[in-house]
C-alpha cells in the first residue's frame, strides 16, 4: 500500500485562519481539523492554550499513605488535586516553590510526571515477580513506576542508548528507591537480549512530542511534516524489535507522548501487516474518557483494530496528549 499521501497535507482556508488565531503552523492546524473536526478542534486548541498543571506520582514503594504525602505538601502551601485516571497521581495546581526542590522530592516520595505518561504504565499493569523490559527508558518515569507496581520484586530490564539521559535514569532509580532494575546502555535495535523471554514490554517510543504542546508551546512551530515521516519509520523499526522481546501470550504497551496518527495508529497498522503474532487488545482505563484510536486519517485507512488503542487529550482527560496501545503476542 502506498502511504505517501498520509504525509501530503493540503492546507485549507480554515486551517490558515486557525493557525493565525492560535499561533501554530498551518499544516498542524489542518491535521488537527482532520483529527477532531471543526467543532472540537477549537476546544482542543483552547485547552492547549490554557495548559495543564504539572502532576506528581506518589511513590508507594516508600510512602505508606499518599494521603499523608498530600497533607504534608498542602501544609507547605501546595494546592493538590487527585487524578481520576491514576489514583496515586496528583495535579499540583499551585507550587509555592518548585516541585523539584522540596525535601519530599529529594526523599523519593514523588516523581514529577504527566498523568498521560503514568496512564501508560497503568495500562501495562505489570505484576509482582514478572520479568519486564522497559525499552527507551531514560529518564525513568516508566521504569520507576513499573517497579512501584511490582513492589520491587521480579526484574526490570531498562534500556536506553543516550549516556546523558542514562545518568538521569540511574539517579532517579536511586532517588525513588527502586531495587529490581538492570540498566543497559544499548541501542535496542542491536541489543542481544534473549527474544521471547519477557512477560511484559514497555516501549515509550521516541517521538516528536506533539502531545507535550500543553507544556511547551514552541512545539507548535518547531516540527515539520518531514520530522513526522522520519520518526514514524524509526518507531516502526523499534516496535517490531520490541515486540520480539515478548513471551508468547505476553503483553506490551506501545506509547508515545504524541497525538500524531502518523506516529501511532499508522505505526501499529504497519506492524500488524508485518507480524502475524501481534494483536491489539482493548486499552481502556477507569476514569478516562477512553477516546479510541483513529481509523482513518488524511484519506488513509488504518487497520480497524487500532480503534482499540487509547488517546488522551488535554480537553477530554486534562492530560498531556498521549497515545497508549496494548499489544499481545499470540500464544
Amino acid at each position, binding site marked *: 500500500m502506498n502511504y505517501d499521501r498520509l504525509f501530503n497535507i493540503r492546507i485549507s482556508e480554515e486551517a490558515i485562519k486557525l493557525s493565525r488565531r492560535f499561533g501554530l503552523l498551518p499544516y498542524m492546524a489542518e491535521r488537527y481539523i482532520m483529527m477532531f473536526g471543526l467543532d472540537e478542534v477549537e476546544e482542543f486548541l483552547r485547552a492547549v492554550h490554557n495548559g495543564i498543571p504539572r502532576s506528581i506520582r506518589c511513590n508507594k514503594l516508600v510512602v505508606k499513605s499518599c494521603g499523608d504525602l498530600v497533607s504534608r505538601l498542602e501544609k507547605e502551601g501546595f494546592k493538590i488535586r487527585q487524578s481520576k485516571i491514576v489514583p496515586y497521581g496528583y495535579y499540583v495546581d499551585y507550587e509555592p516553590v518548585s516541585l523539584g526542590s522540596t525535601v519530599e522530592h529529594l526523599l523519593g516520595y514523588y516523581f514529577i510526571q504527566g498523568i498521560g505518561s503514568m496512564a501508560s504504565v497503568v495500562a501495562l499493569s505489570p505484576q509482582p515477580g514478572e520479568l519486564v523490559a522497559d525499552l527507551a527508558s531514560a529518564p525513568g518515569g516508566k521504569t520507576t513506576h513499573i517497579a512501584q507496581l511490582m513492589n520491587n520484586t521480579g526484574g526490570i530490564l531498562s534500556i536506553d542508548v543516550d549516556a546523558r539521559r542514562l545518568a538521569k535514569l540511574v539517579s532517579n532509580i536511586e532517588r525513588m528507591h527502586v531495587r529490581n532494575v*538492570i540498566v543497559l546502555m544499548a541501542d535496542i535495535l542491536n541489543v542481544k537480549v534473549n527474544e521471547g523471554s519477557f512477560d511484559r514490554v514497555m516501549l515509550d517510543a521516541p517521538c516528536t512530542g506533539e502531545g507535550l504542546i500543553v507544556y511547551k508551546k514552541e512545539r507548535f512551530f518547531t516540527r515539520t511534516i518531514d520530522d513526522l515521516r522520519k520518526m514514524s519509520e524509526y518507531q516502526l523499526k523499534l516496535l517490531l524489535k520490541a515486540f520480539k522481546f515478548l513471551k508468547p501470550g505476553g503483553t506490551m504497551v506501545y506509547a508515545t507522548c504524541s497525538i500524531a496518527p502518523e506516529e501511532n495508529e499508522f505505526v501499529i497498522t504497519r506492524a500488524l501487516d508485518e507480524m502475524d503474532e501481534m494483536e491489539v487488545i482493548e486499552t481502556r482505563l477507569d476514569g478516562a474518557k477512553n477516546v479510541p484510536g483513529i481509523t482513518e486519517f488524511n484519506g488513509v485507512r488504518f487497520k480497524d483494530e487500532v480503534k482499540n488503542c487509547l488517546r488522551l487529550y488535554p480537553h477530554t482527560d486534562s492530560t498531556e496528549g498521549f497515545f497508549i496501545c496494548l499489544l499481545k503476542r499470540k500464544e
Partner: protein
Amino acid sequence: MPVEEKRVRLTVCKEGKRALDSFLKSIDAYNKNCAVVLCLFSGEKMKVYCAQQSLAQLAMTLQDSGEIIYHVGMLAGSLNNRGVFLPSLELGWELIKANTISGRNVVVLEGDEAKEFIFGRTVELVSEMNWEEGKAVAVINEQGEFLGWGKIRGKRIIPVVDIGSYVRYKD
C-alpha cells in the same frame, strides 16, 4: 585485561563485599538485603551493588552475551583507587529504614540545620555530644528521614553525600 574492558566489567566480587562489610562494621550496622555483591568498574572508581540472586544472574547472562551493564539492583557505594569505601545514599536509606545502624552513628539535624546539610553545606552542631573525630555518620531529620552521610570534624558535620545531590548535578 585491556583498560576499556576492565572499566565496564560486572563481577561478583569479594573486594567489594569486604569493603562494604568493613564499612558497615565501622558504623555498627548490618544490611539484610545484600544477597549478592557485584562490582562494576567505572572510571577511577569501582561501584559496589547489592542484588537479589535472580537479578544478579540475569545481569551476568546479559553481560556474557556482550551487553554493557550500567546499573544493577541497589548501589551500595563505591571504592576509590585508594581503597576508601564511599557509602551510597541508598545504603543509608536502607539502614535507617530497617533500623540496622546503631544510634551512636546517627545524627539528627533540625529545621535549618537539615536544610543547610541538604544544600551540601557544613553544619555547626549545637548539641553537647562527644563525637569521635573523623567518624562517618548517617544524618537524619526530625522525622527520622535519611538526608545523607556526613563526617565529624570537631563540632561540625561535613557532608560526604546528601540527598540534595540528586538535583544539584542534573544536566
